[in-house]
Structures are given as structure tokens and as C-alpha cells.
């Protein structure tokens, strides 16, 4: 009895392991709907850092547009959503994707959740982390076209030797604690997540359009 139970658990592990890897490689929904335009709605913030969504919003347009998509201007998007009473990201993320076809004429909508946005101190070294989850949905069918997850980390300290070095680093960490610049990390994460082999196949404004399937 115990053995069958154990076997079942092991089998379940295998099954779930398989399904996630297969999901990552499945681009059939994406290719079936091949969006040209993407609207990025305000990010859902699961952290305590209040500036995270706006820093994120500043760095999302270029990476996505450089993949070849028409990206609706994030600032205008935010204004228009607020104009019709949609100012809560939590509320916006609950809307049916078709709403963004009606409102913007967008082929797809990108929902982003900020999972981590923090600076951690371990002894005299610090590490800055940003971590996001991305989901692209088709506005006509509501289908999920692509999902991604990206973490970017910058570590500092722990390199220089000697007591003087330690003191300098401690002061350095204390100063940077007040003004941590998350922008480069947000930019880095947003660039990496759309690249092959797990990212977004390129869109119509990229010369590689429709010829990059082999990279995914």
C-alpha cells in the first residue's frame, strides 16, 4: 500500500514536470493568432515598493517594440484607463481581454505581475533583485499566447580585502540603501524575457518576421 502511494507521488512529479516543459515550448496558440500590436496595462505590484510599477512601465516599451511589435504608449494607456475609472491594476487584470480590443484596438494585452523588487543585505554585501511574471493574452479569443518569467539580480560588495575595504563597503552599502536605482535591472529583465529561446517570436516591424521559428 505504502509502495503504491509512493509510486503515485513519484509518477505525479514526472507528469507535472513534463507538462511544464511542454507548455514552455508550445507556441501554437501564439502562431495561430500572431499579434501585431500589444497594449501593456499597469503592472500588478505584489511588493511593498510603491515605485516599482512606474519604473517597470518606463522600461517595457523599447524591448517589446524592438522585437517588432506596435506597443501602445504606456503613459497614454494609463491616462485613458483612468479616464474611464480604471485606476487599480488589480481590477484591470481581472477584465476580459476583449475589453482591450474595444478600448484600444490592440491584438494582444500584456499583463505583468511584479513578484519581487528589493534589496537584500547579507553582512557587508548587498543584492538588488527585480522579478516579474508576464502573460500575453489574445484580445479576440482571450487565449493565453505566451507566458514568461524573469529575474534580474545585481550583487555588490564582498570583493575587496582588508578591514579598510570592509568599512568602505559598509558605508557604500548604507548610502546605496537609500537610493537604489532599479531602472537598469528592470530594463535588463524586460530585455531578456522576450529573447529566444523562451521569449516572443518577432513581430511585423522586425526584418526577421515569420522566419525565426527555429529559435524557439
Amino acid at each position, binding site marked *: 500500500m505504502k509502495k503504491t502511494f509512493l509510486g503515485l507521488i513519484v509518477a505525479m512529479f514526472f507528469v507535472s514536470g513534463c507538462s511544464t516543459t511542454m507548455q514552455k515550448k508550445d507556441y501554437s496558440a501564439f502562431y495561430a493568432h500572431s499579434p*501585431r*500590436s500589444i497594449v501593456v496595462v499597469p503592472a500588478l505590484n505584489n511588493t511593498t515598493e510603491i*515605485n516599482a510599477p*512606474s*519604473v517597470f*512601465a*518606463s*522600461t517595457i*516599451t*523599447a524591448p517589446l*517594440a*524592438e522585437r*517588432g*511589435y*506596435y*506597443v*501602445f*504608449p*504606456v*503613459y*497614454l494607456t494609463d*491616462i*485613458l484607463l483612468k*479616464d*474611464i*475609472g480604471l485606476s487599480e491594476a488589480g481590477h484591470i487584470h481581472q477584465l476580459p481581454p476583449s475589453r482591450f480590443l474595444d*478600448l*484600444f*484596438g490592440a*491584438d494582444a494585452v500584456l499583463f505583468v505581475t511584479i513578484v519581487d523588487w528589493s534589496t537584500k543585505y547579507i553582512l557587508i554585501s548587498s543584492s538588488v533583485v527585480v522579478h516579474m511574471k508576464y502573460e500575453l493574452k489574445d484580445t479576440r479569443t482571450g487565449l493565453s499566447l505566451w507566458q514568461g518569467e524573469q529575474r534580474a539580480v545585481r550583487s555588490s560588495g564582498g570583493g575587496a580585502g582588508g578591514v579598510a575595504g570592509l568599512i568602505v563597503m559598509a558605508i557604500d552599502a548604507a548610502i546605496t540603501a537609500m537610493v537604489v536605482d532599479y*531602472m537598469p535591472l528592470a*530594463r535588463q529583465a524586460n530585455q531578456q524575457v522576450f529573447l529566444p529561446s523562451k521569449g516572443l517570436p518577432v513581430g511585423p*516591424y*522586425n526584418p526577421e518576421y515569420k522566419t525565426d521559428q527555429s529559435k524557439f
Partner: protein
Amino acid sequence: MNKQQICLVVISLSTLLLCACAPKSLFYWGDYETSISDRWVENDNDIGEQHLQQTITAAEQSGSKVPPGLYADYGIMLYRRGNPDGAIAYFDKERKTFPESRLLMSKLIDKIHEKQKKTPTQDSQSILGEEKKP
């Protein structure tokens, strides 16, 4: 090393060089990122508008492509500053440059025309205001 091996090394080296050259920007971005963070993170609309305007001018002068959304973004800044005609001109530029934006840009232009026909409203900040649902 025989001839074949040398050939292979040469080919792979040249591919590497080609790859390194390949990732060229599709658009001219200038200070666009800064412009958004000026407005959104620093809450400074004037500097944000300046950075946006400079980026558009530099892109047009450099002969590079203006990125998607910049004309529309500038249009909404003009609108909120009380310049609806300027806004219409830039929304029109956006839809001509990027057909994907046509539906939204046309809707915004229509809304501004509608508002202009009415007597000047107190609420000049909001464009889609009327669509508000309870």
C-alpha cells in the same frame, strides 16, 4: 590542422562577427525612457515633455524611425496642456506612421472634435470621460 578545419574556424569566426554586428536598433529611442520616468516616477511633466519632444526631433533628423507610441504620447501631453489642435495633429501622425493605432487615434481625434463643438468644458484633462460606467 588540415584545410577543412581551418575553413571551419574561419567560417565560425566570421559568423560570430556577423552576429555581433547584427543587433541594430529598429527605432531611435533617445531619452524616451527618461521622459516616461520623469513624468511617472519624478512627477515632473515639463521635463518629461521636453525629453519626449527632443527624442522625436532627434529621431526625425537622424533619419531613424520614430518608435511606436511617441507621437501619440506627445499628443496627449499637448492635450493636457490645453492644446487640442496640437494633440489632433500628433494623433494623426501616429495613425499614419503606425496603422495598428488607427482605431484608438481616430477615436481620440473624434472625441476632441466633439468636445470642441460643445462650449468649452471645465474638464479639459479627460478625453474618454463620457465613457465612464458606474
